[in-house]
């Protein structure tokens, strides 16, 4: 069943949803990266909650005019309008009042959402509202998705993605260094507004699939996931788009593989699974890597200190140091250094002196920045450079044991 879902063989609706969710995931992952790097991830939460009154008002207007209140394009246009108003309110609150951004987000989010819920209740008592199904926009509802709906989502997602790629360079510059960007004449305020407008577009496009409450997860979790794997901003964008798209696809397939599994929440959970995996397993920034690095570092410190103590003829009492030296065959069980131990410790002492020179010499600055008290000097300098340094140390080339 799951395999059928993954290979898009579960029927028309499931296929439409899977394609739509994948495109949405890519668009949200890429767009969300800029928001995340600008450190304004929570703005997306306010924007998404601000869509609700627009959806309801659009329904009421369309129904009042005698049309179909559930026309998706009409509902999305309404949601975009009220999200834009919410965005401007938030911008105004942060720039013109002394309210901090978190407080502005909280106010806009709750007021708009509250107003939306009131309108939702009104619609339900209007009579026409029974079949409205607008609450589907809260958590997404993909059961009755039409070809036209899927096209709206695909076109909206693709257009957003294209716009993001077009202004990615100014957005990245503003995210890293807004003052420098302003000094170069970039309209920082307008670029920020454009960025949030694109986030709003993704939100609106995603209403049908994941709903307004959970869309924030698709905007924030993929970039956070991607950040674990790379130190380059352009790669964060790519990985985030990939993680978002994959989560959308897998989530849609999973939810189609069993009855009564909601699509939006499953997509979010799949996305979270990627995040959790990255959090623990990512090679440099992951938790596991950090723990291993710490243990390895501690051992190297003990080893180095042990070697230096041996070189200076000091007695070692620290049990971990002794154990490490013994296991490496550098000391005998009674604590007396072996021949290898003597050679290695002499070398360690020599390296200390070499490092001292390297760190004092501005010409070796890039190498000196690598100093951690542990490295063998030959891992960072060429043989010739070491010979040069040894000449400068002068004195006997053999170090006494």
């Amino acid at each position, binding site marked *: 069943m799951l395999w059928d879902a993954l290979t898009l063989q579960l029927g028309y609706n499931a296929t439409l949803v899977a394609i739509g969710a994948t495109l949405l995931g890519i668009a949200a992952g890429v767009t969300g990266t800029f928001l995340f790097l600008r450190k304004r991830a929570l703005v997306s939460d306010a924007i998404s909650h601000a869509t609700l009154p627009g959806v309801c008002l659009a329904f009421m207007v369309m129904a009042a005019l005698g049309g179909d209140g559930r026309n998706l394009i009409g509902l999305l246009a309404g949601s975009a309008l009220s999200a834009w108003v919410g965005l401007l309110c938030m911008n105004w609150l942060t720039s013109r009042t002394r309210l901090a951004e978190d407080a502005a987000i909280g106010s806009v989010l709750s007021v708009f959402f509250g107003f939306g819920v009131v309108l939702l209740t009104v619609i339900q008592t209007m009579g026409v509202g029974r079949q409205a199904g607008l609450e589907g926009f809260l958590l997404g509802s993909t059961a009755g998705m039409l070809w036209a709906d899927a096209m709206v989502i695909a076109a909206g997602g693709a257009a957003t993605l294209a716009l993001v790629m077009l202004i990615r360079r100014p957005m990245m510059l503003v995210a*890293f260094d807004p003052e420098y960007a302003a000094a170069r004449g970039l309209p920082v305020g307008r670029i920020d507004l454009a960025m949030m407008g694109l986030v709003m577009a993704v939100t609106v496009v995603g209403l049908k699939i994941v709903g307004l409450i959970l869309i924030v997860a698709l905007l924030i979790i993929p970039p956070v996931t991607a950040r674990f794997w790379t130190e380059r901003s352009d790669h964060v964008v790519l990985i985030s788009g990939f993680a978002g798209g994959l989560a959308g696809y897998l989530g849609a397939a999973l939810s189609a593989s069993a009855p009564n599994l909601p699509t939006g929440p499953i997509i979010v959970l799949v996305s979270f699974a990627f995040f959790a995996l990255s959090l623990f397993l990512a090679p440099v920034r992951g938790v596991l890597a950090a723990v291993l690095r710490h243990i390895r570092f501690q051992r190297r410190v003990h080893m180095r200190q042990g070697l230096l103590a041996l070189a200076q003829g000091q007695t070692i009492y620290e049990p971990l140091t002794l154990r490490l030296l013994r296991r490496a065959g550098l000391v005998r069980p009674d604590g007396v250094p072996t021949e290898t131990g003597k050679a290695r410790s002499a070398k360690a002492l020599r390296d200390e002196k070499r490092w001292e020179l390297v760190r004092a010499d501005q010409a070796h600055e*890039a190498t000196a*920045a690598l100093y951690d008290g542990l490295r063998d000097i030959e891992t960072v300098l060429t043989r010739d450079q070491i010979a040069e340094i040894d000449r400068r140390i002068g004195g006997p080339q053999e170090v006494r044991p």
Partner: protein
Amino acid sequence: MLELATSEGTTVAPQDLAASPLAIRGLTVSYGQKPAVFSVDMTVQPGAMTAIIGPNGAGKSTLLKAALGIITPLSGQVTVYGQPLDDRRARIAYVPQRASVDWDFPTRVIDVVLMGLYRELGLLGRVRARHRATAMDCLNRVGMRDFADRQIGQLSGGQQQRVFLARALAQDADLYLLDEPFAGVDAATEKAIIAVLKSLKQAGKTVVVVHHDLATVTDYFDHVFLINTRKVAEGTVAEAFTAETLQATYGGRLATAQIDQISRALG
């Protein structure tokens, strides 16, 4: 065009304004109700190295930021080489305080320097070998060539500052504005930065630096601009960097011994 009166009552001929890389008239900036910079006039001399000096909170950085339009002033006008700022932005390179950015941002040293080529790259232009070569050359001038591929989070404070300077060099501007480039940096960095600034001056560029170390002013700069919310003095180091002007700028905040030291240094 009429002659403009400065706050001292002396007059500045219009042609001086046109020649000045950066001319500020009547600039007032306020955070809330308290002005940080009040009605300040400044005429930067072309080809000079000017230090902006004043106590903490005197509005030094604010003056620079307002001159660049980073913060909006309440009043005042700024001309760059005789033209409105926005027409002459390409000739200005700005080096912000390094604490103003998050150094854990996912980017490498070379990418930061490439930001200096923003105008040339445009929205969609690809980073080509010649752009990379320019960036490497700028890194070389600040002694950071070997750091090109390192993550910016691994840099020391002084190295961060030099990367920022390299980014400004990449712009190939005529007027360089630096905000506290020597704050909290190591001696090697200070030497490297001042060498680069002096080479810029040699090449006929104009350099303006927000500076806090009074002891090095006479060694590093030829012009000073003393400010404490209002302008106190402006001119060559010999004219304007005196015990009296310093007393007027710092008030009681500068120890008498310090002033004596400085006036001895001035001879």
